[in-house]
């Protein structure tokens, strides 16, 4: 009986240690295998894509990416640097795309005269694109591609 308890305890400990090491390795993947107790040498900060050419959206509701640098853009109670080009009244001079009309709606769907406070902080949703390779693979297909595939498959059968 005593032996059985000892064996079961050691077994469970073994399993636990396995899962722990497995977890530790899992955590370490984005840290290039750096031990959890160590500070990883920071990666290079990538360059921002600054071409002013619009990126395609990966899905219809994706907030469009910002195709230019926004370093030190001030967005606070005093001032919104983004809106100095993208606001309705500024787009004629700046030739920048105007903020979407959805941004003038409050959450009950009423249209306001100005950009709604909940949409004021642009970089809550909109971000510039860094010039990097993705950290992990991605097999995402957008709805358009899926529909095309479906139609093609239907024609084949």
């Amino acid at each position, binding site marked *: 009986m005593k032996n059985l308890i000892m064996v079961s305890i050691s077994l469970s400990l073994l399993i636990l240690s396995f899962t722990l090491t497995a977890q530790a390795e899992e955590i370490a993947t984005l840290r290039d295998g750096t031990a959890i107790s160590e500070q990883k040498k920071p990666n290079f900060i990538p360059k921002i894509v*600054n*071409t*002013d050419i619009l990126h395609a959206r990966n899905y219809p509701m994706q907030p469009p990416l910002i195709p*230019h640098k926004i*370093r*030190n853009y*001030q967005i*606070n*109670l*005093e*001032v919104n*640097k983004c809106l*100095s080009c993208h606001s309705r009244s*500024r787009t004629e*001079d700046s030739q920048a795309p105007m903020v979407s009309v959805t941004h003038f709606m409050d959450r009950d769907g009423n249209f306001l005269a100005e950009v709604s406070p909940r949409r004021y902080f642009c970089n809550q949703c909109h971000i510039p694109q860094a010039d990097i390779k993705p950290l992990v693979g991605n097999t995402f297909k957008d709805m358009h591609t899926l529909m095309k595939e479906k139609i093609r498959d239907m024609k084949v059968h």
Partner: protein
Amino acid sequence: MWKNILLNFWQTLRRPSLHYSLGFLVVGGFIAGIVFWGGFNTTLELTNTEEFCISCHEMRDNSYEELKTTVHFSNKSGVRATCPDCHVPHNWTDKIARKMQASKEVWGTIFGTIDTREKFLAARRNLAEHEWARLKANDSLECRNCHHFDYMDFTLQNTRAVEQHSTSLASGEKTCIDCHKGIAHELPDMQGVDGW
């Protein structure tokens, strides 16, 4: 009594020197001139350094802290702008004129017109407007001390920048400060400012 003193002084000035030789007076005056002028200019230049500006907490805790986060403080080539590079004209006569205006800032320091963060924020629009007006009036001279239009390579600029620089800036219709506001410090409430 004052009249007598002044009269005495004037008569002494008018009379030829009794005790000192002409050579002594000329050479002595020359040396004294060098000392006075050198001293004046050295002191002037001393007040024209960043250390002097941030020796007061108003500038150290507000303007200087904000500058530190910008490209004019830290950048890839390590060339940086100090306070006087942008805020004091480099040309001597203009510099003296600006320094005379700055005596108002001494008044401000003594009586603490912006000695708290709240007071500074409340005054920021006013302070900023002074600087915008100054740079607008001198065609952004302090920007152009480093950023020469003639040597700008449009092929290295992004398309948006080329569009603005090759038209409005090239024709002189606009000057740097018209667009580049708040590049070294935070902006105040911009309500009613042209282009915002």
